[in-house]
């Protein structure tokens, strides 16, 4: 198989499985040969996962984490998309707001944890606030650049057909910017999933992030820590794959390049 030839169907499944299997083997023997008493082997993690599932804590934690992401990400979409569209639409307003946003944007949501706790106390609302902060800026920025990158032929065509300003926004600018907005939403969802874990380690006592920190604190159960970490990875992947399906909708497909 060289880099130019199209991989065959079985190869597309076979090689990734082989790579994962090799990684598991490497993990297993690293633990065995180093003689570590702390870091668990794959077998122990599997048992830990089974234990979590049997005691029904895992499902509750997963649901709690997902609900927090849904609330924080949802709020970021509801506020960020209209704001981003408006700022893209009025470049003058954007120039006013942009410096503040450029300063706030690179701040990790983790840095806001103390502030969130002052505002909301220790609890769900602080965690949701942190997720909101993490997701909000990428969404706003994607909407601004999406709208301002709409080719002028589309705007002119819209005006030519006699559209009013609100119609131009909903019938031309929004659909034309939608592929770029979707990319922003996808990035924001990824960040939201990163932030929920961090927030749950500090602000609340449920969720996958709490499970990680609690498994360590109560009896150094590193098999459970790693099981929870793997679960976080798998759910993050599923969220991303689910979101990518939106990119295949026919009215936005034109904005994306697909390999096949």
């Amino acid at each position, binding site marked *: 198989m060289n880099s130019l030839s199209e991989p065959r169907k079985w190869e597309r499944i076979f090689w990734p499985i082989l790579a994962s299997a090799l990684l598991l083997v490497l993990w297993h023997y690293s633990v065995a040969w180093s003689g570590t008493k702390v870091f668990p082997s794959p077998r122990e993690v599997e048992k830990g996962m089974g234990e979590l599932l049997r005691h029904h804590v895992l499902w509750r934690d997963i649901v709690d984490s997902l609900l927090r992401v849904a609330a924080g990400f949802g709020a970021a979409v509801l506020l960020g998309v209209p704001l981003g569209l408006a700022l893209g639409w009025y470049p003058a307003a954007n120039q006013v707001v942009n410096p503040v946003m450029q300063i706030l944007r690179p701040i990790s949501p983790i840095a806001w944890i103390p502030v969130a706790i002052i505002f909301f106390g220790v609890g769900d609302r602080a965690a949701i606030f942190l997720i909101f902060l993490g997701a909000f800026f990428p969404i706003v920025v994607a909407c601004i650049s999406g709208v301002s990158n709409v080719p002028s032929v589309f705007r002119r065509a819209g005006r030519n*057909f006699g559209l009013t300003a609100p119609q131009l926004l909903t019938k031309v600018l929004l659909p*034309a910017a939608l592929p770029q907005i979707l990319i922003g939403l996808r990035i924001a969802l990824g960040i939201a999933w990163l932030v929920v874990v961090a927030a749950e380690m500090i602000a609340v006592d449920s969720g996958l992030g709490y499970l990680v920190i609690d498994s360590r604190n109560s009896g150094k159960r590193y098999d459970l820590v790693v099981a929870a970490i793997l679960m976080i990875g798998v759910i993050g992947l599923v969220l991303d794959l689910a979101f990518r399906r939106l990119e295949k909708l026919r*009215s936005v497909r034109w904005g994306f390049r697909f390999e096949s």
Partner: protein
Amino acid sequence: MPVTQPVSVPAAVTTKLSVEHVSMVFERDGKSTHVLNDINLEVGDGEFVCLLGPSGCGKSTLLNAMAGFLSPTSGEIRAGGEVVRKPDPRRIFVFQERGVFPWLTVEGNIGFGLSQLSRAEREKRIAYYVKMVGLEGFEKTYPQELSGGMKQRLEVARALAVNPDMLLLDEPFGALDSITRLIMRGELLRIWEAERKTIVFVTHDIDEAVQLADRVVVMSARPATIQQIVNIDIAHPRDISSPRYLELRDGIFKQIGLAHKV
């Protein structure tokens, strides 16, 4: 043989569009560029006029001003007697094929300007223009899956569907290959003969202008002035090897200052 024609339209035809002493100066970075210099032109109702000139001469600028996307620095453009101040669905601008909306199907694009019609009326109109431009069977297709020529026909159909008085075409076939371009010229003439819209067509292709237009407006390099208006007195369909065709075309070649040799 003189091929010059007075600027005005023959008396029997009513004037649809008049350009009166239009000049255009763009200011950018403190530098001003003089693009159009005292342009005067009348276009008759149902007439097919080509604006012909070298690239960058300002013919597109003039067309944008006719559409109402740009305001002249001085002078006035009138359409049907009213001064043009902003874009209007009565004068539809046709871009190169990239003007079609990629997020809408063929039907959606053609119906774009028809939202105020009843559903039944809109569907009738869409079906009529789908047929006119030969896109039957592609009603639910997205532009991404159409060829360049089909996209261009789609854009013409979208323009015609709102029943404008006038079409303003800005090098509409410029991005097409030469065979498709020839076919599209035939299609455009067929549609023009059926609908008798006033057409102003910008091109830098001398053959294209002489094949299509009733009158060819030859423009100079920037700042553009009208050098000459050539009346193409050959009936359609035009025989592009006839002596008259070659004579008119060669006259324009000379006018533009090109030796007719490669």
